[in-house]
């Protein structure tokens, strides 16, 4: 019925949505959308390095994003610049370095559009393995650090005072962010990964009154976005990333109706 590449893209997309759902909630709660952007911009450099040294793209992106995250944490400690300036600095300089390196790699033909916006044709069976084992690992670690991470999101001092070690949870979460970007870059593209994290979570916020519900709705929203997005991508021959994000946007707009209704009920 469907071509193999499309089945692969579906399996990949659904795996990614399962991971971006809960992680996206934390991105919204902890106000990390620009942090996500910075990491994904640096992913371009990761991709070029993968091509230059012929190593796995996901692995290389993961390493570079982790390094950028570590540099960011160090800069935050050592300078007096505000957080958003540091994020912008790292995002654009790593993007620039990545583009310059691409310029030197004349012997390789790059599909820049595919890199930026995702390409369903590019998903291989190996990618599926990386997405599903990587994704399962990410979720497992997230479950393990959930309590301290969530408690310190609500109030850092409470978590610290009551012995939950929030600093360790935060450091681990940063690594998880790098990992989720690494596994979803082929599918969603580096410009739109943060959208995949934020939009389903934002939609879920409009529908939930507890953190667990928000995580659940965020996962469901992500899965639906992938399904809707990929089918329309096939139908209209559009890039996979933008199609998925647009589907998520439609769901978000629908969720706004729920807010309007609950405000009406209150009055």
């Amino acid at each position, binding site marked *: 019925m469907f071509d193999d590449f499309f089945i692969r893209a579906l399996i990949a997309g659904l795996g990614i949505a399962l991971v971006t759902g809960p992680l996206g909630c934390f991105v*919204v*709660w902890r*106000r990390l959308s620009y942090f996500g952007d910075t990491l994904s911009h640096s992913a371009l450099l990761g991709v070029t390095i993968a091509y230059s040294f012929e190593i796995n793209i996901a692995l290389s992106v993961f390493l570079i994003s982790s390094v950028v995250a570590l540099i960011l944490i160090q800069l935050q400690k050592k300078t007096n610049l505000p957080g958003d300036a540091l994020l912008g600095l790292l995002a654009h300089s790593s993007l620039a370095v990545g583009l310059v390196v691409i310029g030197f790699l004349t012997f390789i033909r790059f599909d820049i559009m595919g890199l930026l916006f995702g390409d369903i044709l590019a998903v291989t069976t190996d990618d599926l393995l990386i997405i599903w084992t990587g994704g399962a690992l990410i979720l497992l670690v997230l479950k393990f650090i959930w*309590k301290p991470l*969530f*408690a310190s*999101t*609500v*109030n850092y*001092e*409470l*978590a*610290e*005072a*009551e*012995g*939950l070690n929030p600093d360790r949870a935060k450091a681990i979460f940063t690594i998880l962010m790098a990992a989720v970007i690494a596994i979803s870059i082929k599918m969603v593209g580096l410009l739109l990964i943060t959208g995949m994290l934020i939009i389903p979570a934002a939609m879920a*916020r409009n529908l*939930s*009154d*507890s*953190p*667990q*519900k*928000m995580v659940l709705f965020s996962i469901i929203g992500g899965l639906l976005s992938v399904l809707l997005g990929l089918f329309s991508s096939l139908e209209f021959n559009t890039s996979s990333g933008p199609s998925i994000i647009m589907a998520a946007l439609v769901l978000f707009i629908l969720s706004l109706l729920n807010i309007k209704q609950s405000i009406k009920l209150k009055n």
Partner: protein
Amino acid sequence: MSLENNTLVKLNNAGFKQNDKWLVEGVSLTVEKGKIVTLIGPNGSGKSTTAKIALGIYKNIEGSVEKYTNKVGYVPQKISIDWTLPLRVHDFMLLTENIKDEAIDEALNLTGVIHLKNKNLGNLSGGEFQRVLIARAISKKPELLVLDEPVQGVDYTGEIALYELIKRISDTLNCGILLISHDLHTVMTATDHVVCLNGHVCCSGTPMDVAKNNEYKTLFGEQASQILSVYEHKHDHVHSDKGEIKKN
């Protein structure tokens, strides 16, 4: 059991410096099981800082902290919850530890806010939120309770009831309490040990010792010291229904 084993947290000449300014220095105090230690002092005297040193929130400190328990309940002075978090009272009760539903209900009952269990945290009034904060701290049956102005924003009758509750908890759970309060009346009735801070320890001891201290008098004024005397007075006699005074 030796005395050492009753110690929950001990500050040895502890101090904390931020941006080259001492917030507090040279504080030594011990909180033991079943005892209430109260910190008093004017604004900016380092009460909350001392509590945070004891809790291990501030790490680069002078002196040292010895902590002998990990079962800690904390009611911070300031806490703001973000609207981006959908959080009900029930979720908040489970924030740092998974506790049984009965324990949650019991704690919320004790502080009189059981009816708010499924309400969104953002919709509570200041006083209601404060009661939830106290309920959360006691529901996990801690060995050490640190209460930083726990009844701020609570109505007058509620205030008295909550302080009675705190006293009762220290007895029933046999937990040590580090209390910060500006309400000298309560401080004096329920406290075993008072530490009066003003950037450093200006005096400490039993409530009566502190009341007699001259530094305390200059810091809080003559009237404050009379409050203490009134309360101390209450301990050595009782009034009968007819107003007669009976010595204990």
